[in-house]
């Protein structure tokens, strides 16, 4: 039986990540003990980038570096255990087995990152229990196998308590299997530095974008719970660096993105208009 392998993320270059607290040290300590890690934080605050950065940092110099040091799975409500573990596929006259990202990671000893885990179906959540305790095994029912996890394997999940409700909360039995690292948005100076690096925009505009982000995040409970993400600020910076006026860039990347409520949009637009100098 052949196994088809999808191309993955090789992390040849170090991803940019600006540490905000002791998250790097904490992750390294957890990894050294192969303790599964739960990343908590609002949308667009850098959780995924952090995992990429840590994967690169952990695997960049190792002799047994897997081809894909990080398997990232964006979980959704139709994501099942099969999607994670693997499935048989018809290919020509043959039936071939394709490992899922979790199986592959378990076999190769890479980091498997299940982004927004609570969005996935319950069977997939339960599946990870055996990988996150002392057993470190993955049952593959369709093959009648139980895979022992590679010694370098690490499971990382992320979860956003801000907008996920009680119905989609992480079960206690799942939650208590992970070391939890909490993320928040960076402060003004750090966020400006991130925007400069990621978007190529000048530092003045980056500082103003960071100020927009800081102010908009004060608007809790007005149709958007988390304000504007660093990712959106970076998008706005990228538009500005491409010659789009700051107000138009913020309108497209921030104002229209954060809410459909016209009054919220107006308020944010007024804020943007005050923060950026007038054109000309």
């Amino acid at each position, binding site marked *: 039986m052949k196994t088809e392998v999808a191309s993955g993320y090789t992390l040849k270059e170090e991803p940019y990540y600006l540490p905000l607290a002791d998250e790097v040290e904490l992750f390294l300590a957890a990894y050294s003990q192969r303790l599964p890690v739960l990343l908590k934080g609002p949308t667009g605050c850098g959780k995924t980038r952090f995992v990429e950065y840590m994967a690169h940092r952990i695997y960049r110099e190792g002799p047994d570096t897997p081809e894909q040091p990080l398997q990232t799975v964006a979980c959704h409500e139709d994501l099942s255990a099969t999607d994670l573990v693997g499935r048989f596929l018809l290919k020509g006259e043959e039936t071939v087995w394709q490992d899922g990202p979790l199986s592959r990671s378990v076999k190769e000893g890479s980091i498997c990152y299940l982004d927004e885990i609570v969005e996935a179906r319950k069977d997939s959540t339960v599946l990870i229990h055996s990988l996150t305790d002392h057993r470190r095994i993955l049952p593959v029912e369709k093959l009648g196998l139980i895979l022992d996890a590679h010694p370098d394997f690490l499971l990382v999940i992320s979860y956003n308590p801000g907008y996920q409700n009680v119905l989609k909360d992480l079960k206690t039995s799942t939650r208590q299997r992970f070391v939890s690292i909490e993320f928040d948005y960076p402060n003004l100076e750090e966020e400006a530095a991130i925007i400069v690096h990621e978007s190529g925009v000048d530092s003045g505009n980056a500082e103003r974008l960071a100020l927009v982000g800081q*102010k908009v995040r004060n608007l809790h409970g007005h149709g958007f719970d988390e304000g504007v993400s660093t990712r959106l600020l970076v998008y706005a910076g990228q538009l500005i660096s491409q010659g789009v006026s700051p107000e138009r860039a913020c309108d497209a990347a921030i104002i229209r993105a954060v809410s459909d409520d016209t*009054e919220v949009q107006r*308020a*944010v637009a*007024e*804020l943007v208009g005050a923060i950026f*100098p007038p054109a000309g």
Partner: protein
Amino acid sequence: MKDDIIREAALRLGTINRKTGDRFAEVCAGLGHLSPEQLSQFAEDAIAIADSGWRSFEPLNLLLDLGERLNAERLIRVAACSRQISGYSCEPALAYLQLVHSHPSMELDRVEHPGLALHKSYQHASTLLAGYFRSAAGILDHCGISDQDAWFSLVRRFSQEGRDGLQELIRLTPECRRWQTALVLAETNTANCLAYLRRSAALEQMFAGRLDAVDQVIAACVDCDVPDTLLAALLALARLPAPGQNLLLSLSLKLPGSEAVIALLEGAVELPLDRPEVVSDWLHYSLGEAAGNNASLVAYLRLESLRSREVLKQFRGEVSLADHQRTFDLLVEALSARELMIDTIPDEPPGVASDFRREYPVAPGADARTIYLPGSISFFDNSEDNFAFYKVSIFHQIGFVEFGCFSGINDVLLQLESYRDERLAQALFRIVEDARIDWQLETRYPGLVPQLRRLKGLALADRKPPLTRRVRLLEVLVRTGLDGEMPGEADPEWQEMEERLRLLMLGLSFLARALTIP
């Protein structure tokens, strides 16, 4: 024969008053060209006048005086008329003859016919008749030919409708000079005319030099069955400035009837009369909007309809707090990270000194939980600038929190306690802190700079020259805070204060140091 007539009549008159008899003989001697019949008629008329009653020699003497001034035919005619109106009282004849005396060349028919008609209708109404002739004298003295004709027409018109109206017309005649307008009104309704006459003196006093415009409006409202209301509405314009009055008068002529005119005038106090183009646009829009529906137009012009208020707001660029409340609430929350409320400025804003309130009754303010803003803003002629006023006010009020007014307040209070005059200390603190906040806003929110500078410029233009030295010192601070300069000769003490504020502006000082007593 002529001599016999004269002698006989003179004797007859002499029995009443000897001097009058002699005078008659003298006058008749000068009327040699009269035929015996004419002379006889004149003598009969003179005797009839003399016989008419108490003080009758007074009109007769006046008639004889006229003998030297009128030609014979005219004298005979005047005598005949005087005779007709003599009787119960000498007053009518006296008034008539005085009129002829003062206007010897007037067209007699014009004056006599209405008078004789009056006499015929009301034979014993001597006061009325005398009043008519005296009023006619006034009309001939003070009015142009068109108004004179209008007045005589009015007399004829009122004569047909009863004595009361006529008496009032005569009584009110000295108070009016605009008889053509009165005639236009009387043609519809004499009561309307009297209502106009009752207020004509007040109208003349109020609209001196602009009565043509007033009369045009009144004449355009001849359909009016409530002239008192119309006239009261016109007189009520006294509380408005003259340019506003003129605007309303000219706009009134564009309206289709009296009800609409009254509605416009009565609602005028709420209109932005200092911006005529706005009022004019609003009114023209109203005519289109009402589309011939008078009730709708009246409601619109009285500003009773919501639509009317909305349209006016749009034309004047007015921005109201209520219309943007949620946007402002969100802006405040985003800026301050607090749930501050926004409310309209109360009569007694907490924490605002009473003298400050008097000076700036619409100045935004704040306490720990609420930002107080004016209910509406129409300082500028477009909604963008008026909205910007709100926006800058919100940023300024939040600035007290954002730029650390409260974090260093203990040091500031310590400095203020060292002032002997508490009110001066408060005023200084307010002025310097307001200036500091605005400068900080310009640095952190460069998008606000054009709006801030515009508002500062307006505030600067409104400053009045200070009177006392102490106020001049505060004025220096206010003007420096508004990025302006103090006119006049520089004072070393001013320069010291200016310098302190400049350091604060550049971020090279802090509030407590700026307030230190030298």
